[in-house]
């Protein structure tokens, strides 16, 4: 239960605090990077949950992993989080903050995954359709993944549009498995 209430309260407080200081965007950028870092780095999450390490060391490690200096407002916020021993919730807090920022600023976040680099024209064409649908700012992270073989995967606000060759092959395999009742290698 706490995993739900705590991040919501802390993230809400951070947003209001940042908004008051006019630093909401800078913090949004840094918090987004930190959330990505924490989601992908298990060791970093484990470090934050370690009861032996002091808050000072944990913050120093986090700073080291992040490389660029924290925004002063974010730094103050992190001090408070460490003081209240809520650092294990940091990932959830950061994600919640990005949600709040996007919601208040009508930003739609997504990912465009392609097998090869796409040129600006194709990208514009793809994203144009989405922009019309979402009626807001579209923030897209571009990823190149050769495993897609061809086509693309577009993710916007938890909705995934899979038009990749790999995805199609996966679905064909599923149909085969359904009919022949076994997992195909």
């Amino acid at each position, binding site marked *: *239960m706490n*995993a*739900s209430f705590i991040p919501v309260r802390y993230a809400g407080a951070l947003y209001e605090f940042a908004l008051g200081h006019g630093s909401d965007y800078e913090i949004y950028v840094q918090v987004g990077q930190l959330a990505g870092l924490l989601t992908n780095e298990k060791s970093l999450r484990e470090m934050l949950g370690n009861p032996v390490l002091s808050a000072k060391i944990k913050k120093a490690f986090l700073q080291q992993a992040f490389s660029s200096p924290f925004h002063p407002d974010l730094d103050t916020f992190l001090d408070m989080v460490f003081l209240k021993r809520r650092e294990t919730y940091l990932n959830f807090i950061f994600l919640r903050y990005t949600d709040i920022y996007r919601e208040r600023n009508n930003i739609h976040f997504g990912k465009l995954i392609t097998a090869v680099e796409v040129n600006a024209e194709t990208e514009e064409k793809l994203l144009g359709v989405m922009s019309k649908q979402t009626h807001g700012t579209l923030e897209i992270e571009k990823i190149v993944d050769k495993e897609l073989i061809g086509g693309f995967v577009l993710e916007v606000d*938890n*909705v995934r*549009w899979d038009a990749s060759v790999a995805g199609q092959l996966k679905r064909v395999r599923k*149909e085969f498995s359904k009919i022949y009742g*076994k997992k195909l290698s």
Partner: protein
Amino acid sequence: MSDNIKVSEVSDILRMQLEGVVSGVQFDEVGTVLQVSDGVVRIYGLNKAEANELLEFENGMKAIVMNLEEDNVGAVLLGPTNLIKEGFTVKRTRRVASINVSEAMLGRVINPLGDPIDGKGNIDAAGIEMPLERKAPGVIFRQPVVEPLQTGLKAIDAMIPIGRGQRELIIGDRQTGKTSIAVDTIINQKENFDAGKPVYCIYVAIGQKGSTVASIVNTLKEHGALDYTIIVAANASDSAALQYFAPFAGAAIGEFFRDTGRHALVVYDDLSKQAVAYREVSLILRRPSGREAYPGDIFYLHSRLLERAAKINNQQEVAEQMNDLPESLKGKVKGGGSLTALPVIETQAGDVSAYIPTNVISITDGQIFLDTDLFNQGNRPAINVGISVSRVGGNAQIKPMKKVAGTLKIDQAQYRELEAFTKFGGDMDPVTAMTINKGQKNTRLLVQSLHEPMPVEKQVAILYCGTKGLLANVPLDKVANFQSEFLMVLEHTHKADVLDVIKSGTINDELIAIIETVAGQVARKFA
């Protein structure tokens, strides 16, 4: 892959794809796994996920949504935890957790997801998708329990009768014969199956050893009971989530038979282990815990499961309107079906006042209490008649049984009371001596061997001898011999005029006279 697939079949698949079976583009709602802990994942995203919805990971593993929180979704994994990592993408399937049920499942051992685990290959038949969680039928769609479900055990059919649609708890310590009663009841349904009026049986094994389940399957097979039985197994080595869902899968299968106008019996062996599995899942999901660390909704867990046992109204037009019918079952509903439930609860040192036992006792329509002392004395089934009860079963006894065994329970209670006094020594008056003698004989008559259920007509005949004191002159150690000889004589010389008549539900003076004559003749042999 190539060996078993013909070229023509490949073409068929490709044609199907061209016709749009598999579309080129797919829309999915996706989320990201943020945290993985023993069988439970927390997912970021999936804002529109519904409770009990089935989720699918990129490696094909499934999970079921249990917690819908403000900024994340908690789901229980239906497979090994080590196959899921943080950062994995998970998508909605827009389907609630369900099981594909068909008659082809009979004789098979499956897991709670409906996949066979007996090594006999796939279950190919196209079945009906039955949701694991479903609301129980409302009062309008039910009927009172009036039809008996014969267990084949004299002590139960005579004193604690079970009706079709009833929920009768089997409760007792470990090693007191709880599973044996359930298995005997399943074996006793063979007669109905052979007569073309089957009572389909579902045995749900929760948290048991694989070897125990295998031995039960073997027993059922040896007695020809596997043809009408489905075994749902979530073994001790399976995840807590699977153990939690196993009884629901059993109920869903039972509902398939119930709602298509047939009779079914489901045994949940046992619900104490399911409660423990649910406690584990709830604690990992960080739900607040209550008494004995069980979550607050543990009562609701068992009540909603057991409420699904019902006798459905036999008016077709009413049954068709049944609440919460799954889409796939619409148009196939028939009235008059029933689902009887025999939940099993294991007590610790005979403590029926513990949390889970009291809960389930209050939910069910009666309980069969098994006593370790009785078991060790050789009174098997070790039913403690004093605290066993059937709250609706009395209406579901055949008339001859009601007439013959009506006073048996009270007679036995009286006998036990007098027996306690005789332990002080001293002389006994003839009436007391007679009551004790009859009680001892009846106690012996109620002893029954394992996996040897007795047809109801034979039960009535032999219990008549017991309740009327016809065994008064038979020595105690010859009671079993008297029983077998008496029943053999009846079987060979009076099948049509006694046994078949009782079976049809009638009892008259002429029939009683024959029983008394035969009993007298046989008793003289042993006197």
